């Protein structure tokens, strides 16, 4: 009979920090994979992931067999920058759990054992990530740069060691600073690492002799050993380790569990960085407008949402600009409808947050506030797309088409208001149907 917990469970009953570390590491990845499977079920894997990998693999092989001219024109810093981006996402992992504070952290042997295992895991993870990235990129770059297998291996090893150094430096910075200072420190350190790594690695791959490359890798090895030794003997790191583990889990599953408490991260600072002052944003101060304004404040403080919004805006702008004007106009309607649906989803999710759900929202208030809230982001983005369409028309046809830059947004505003209003009616009818169905089901 299998012990409880399957493969992980088989390790139970055996003591030692390394075994506990392995159990936690396995549990972490199983938990993450289970979370991913919420989105990547077998239909998605069969119809999207496998064909996507097949097509991407084929394209990659085609690039290898028949390298296009543009690859030769890529600067040699390109793979080095990609490796740097991958290294700067890493953090030191110890798989600490809050329950460790009860007993485990009282034992120096267990703490140093778990930390050593964490350091080894982090280094192995850096080696694996750098090797995988270099293994994909360097065969392509070899056509243009003439890099040998040994040179590629040295670059990947150096990136892994540099990544390991980065995790320890980041760990120290995050222990030392909190809030805004921590964010600024990590940004500054990232910039410093890129500034140090990219030119030195490029020089190493281009001009440096074998002795210099070996010396550089040896220096990195020494730095790794020194920093790891120092980290191993530090006290008072538990709180930071817990925070790092929460962040690592959030990074891993955040894209799947974005609606849930599990993937939520508290703000970095004590105070908001966006819209710090409680100054009103809207002239109208009725209740629906006040609620819509609060929603807007919350959305603009979510870095992930703002990033998605900017990405959607950029993609939409590109789609409108690259299409013929008549097709751009059709695309504008489609994009606005897509944006409206997305904003509606954001509102619905916001309104079911536990704090909002504490209150008794009148249906009329909820509907009015939702409509105003959607318009606060739909109108500026929709009108900006209108202006881009107008600029595109002026650019293509010139002369009398240039006033379209102003006329299209002016005409677009009532259209957007009408679409938003229609959406309110549609969502209201859907909610009524759903409520009736639930009531019928309850009976």
């Amino acid at each position: 009979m299998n012990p409880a917990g399957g493969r992980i469970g088989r390790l139970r009953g055996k003591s030692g920090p390394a075994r506990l570390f392995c159990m936690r590491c396995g549990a972490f990845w199983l938990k993450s994979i289970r979370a991913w499977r919420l989105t990547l079920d077998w239909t998605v894997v069969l119809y999207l992931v496998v064909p996507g990998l097949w097509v991407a693999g084929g394209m990659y092989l085609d690039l290898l067999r028949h390298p296009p001219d543009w690859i030769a024109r890529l600067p040699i810093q390109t793979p080095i920058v990609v490796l740097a981006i991958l290294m700067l996402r890493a953090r030191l992992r110890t798989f600490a759990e809050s329950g460790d504070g009860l007993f485990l952290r009282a034992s120096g042997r267990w703490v140093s054992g778990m930390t050593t295992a964490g350091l080894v895991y982090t280094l192995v993870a850096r080696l694996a990530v750098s090797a995988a990235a270099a293994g994909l990129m360097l065969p392509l770059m070899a056509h243009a740069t003439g890099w040998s297998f040994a040179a590629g291996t040295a670059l990947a090893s150096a990136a892994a060691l540099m990544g390991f150094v980065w995790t320890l430096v980041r760990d120290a910075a995050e222990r030392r600073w909190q809030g805004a200072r921590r964010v600024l420190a990590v940004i500054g350190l990232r910039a410093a690492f890129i500034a140090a790594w990219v030119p030195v690695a490029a020089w190493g791959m281009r001009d440096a002799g074998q002795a210099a490359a070996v010396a550089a890798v040896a220096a990195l090895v020494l730095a790794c050993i020194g920093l790891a030794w120092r980290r191993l003997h530090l006290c008072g790191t538990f709180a930071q380790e817990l925070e790092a583990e929460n962040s690592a889990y959030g990074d891993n599953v955040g894209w799947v569990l974005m609606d849930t408490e599990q993937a939520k991260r508290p703000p970095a600072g004590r105070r908001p960085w966006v819209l710090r002052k409680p100054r009103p944003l809207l002239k109208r101060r009725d209740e629906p407008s006040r609620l819509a304004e609060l929603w807007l404040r919350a959305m603009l403080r979510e870095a992930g949402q703002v990033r998605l919004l900017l990405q959607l805006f950029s993609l939409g702008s590109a789609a409108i600009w690259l299409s013929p004007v008549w097709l751009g106009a059709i695309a504008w309607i489609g994009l606005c409808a897509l944006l409206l649906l997305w904003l509606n989803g954001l509102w619905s999710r916001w309104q079911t947050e536990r704090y909002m759900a504490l209150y008794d929202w009148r249906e009329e208030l909820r509907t009015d506030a939702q409509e105003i809230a959607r318009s606060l982001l739909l109108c500026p983005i929709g009108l900006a797309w209108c202006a881009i369409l107008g600029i595109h028309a002026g650019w293509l046809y010139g002369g009398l088409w240039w006033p379209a830059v102003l006329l299209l947004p002016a005409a677009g505003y009532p259209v957007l208001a009408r679409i938003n209003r229609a959406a309110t009616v549609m969502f209201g009818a859907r909610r009524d149907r759903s409520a009736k169905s639930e009531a019928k089901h309850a009976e």
Partner: protein
Amino acid sequence: MGGDSWLVRAAIRAAGYEQGKAVLRDVAIEVGRGERVGLLGPDGAGKSTVMKGLLGQLPYWDADVDWRGAADGTDATSGGGAMNRRLAYIPERPILYERFTLWEHLQLAAAVCGISEKRLAERAEGLLARFRLSHVKDDYPIKFSKGMQQKTMLVAAFLLEPSVYLVDEPFIGLDPAAVMELLEALDEERARGAGVLLTTHVLDSAERLCDRFVLVHEGGVAASGTVADIRAVAGMPDGTPLFDCFHQLTRAAPAEGP
């Protein structure tokens, strides 16, 4: 409690977390104007179930709940039991939104419950000063200490000036000064005519603070009424502290419910 001074009357026939599976049976609770009613009981007795039921959060809730003013429409809202001008809930664990400042938490409460910005400013400034939170009103409460987070919930609840307060374990996480402020603020609300239903494990405080008690045990009511009534049910002499009556009733007596 009888007569015409009630604010909320609940006759709970059965309640639970799954349809048809009652964890609470035949519990009657009434809170009157200016009254503090203590809902007491050991862990798992059903105190929080009563609170959740009154808040409209239970999937299985077979009860008649009457709110004063709801029938004649003078204080009626859309119902559902969540926080509004009729009912404020102060949970044991603070419930906060991570992207709102303290002031924005209050703004949301005011906007949903129909409180004007002018009234919000007047009332909230006083409450923030009373609970010593004025200097952090533009900070994120999610970053506060547990006690300060609890005070945030108190300010949000007092802002609404409801008829009834549901207060779940009010003394946990608050420093002594904040407990005093809370009790003073509740007294002022009682003087206004509001009623308070509070759950607590701190029986000494409950005995001093509450006018009446409902002792819930094993999903039913073991005793209810004033301290004298509880003593009588427990068969204890005059002067016996509530703590001893509680111990006697929860140790020996089975619940009165079926």
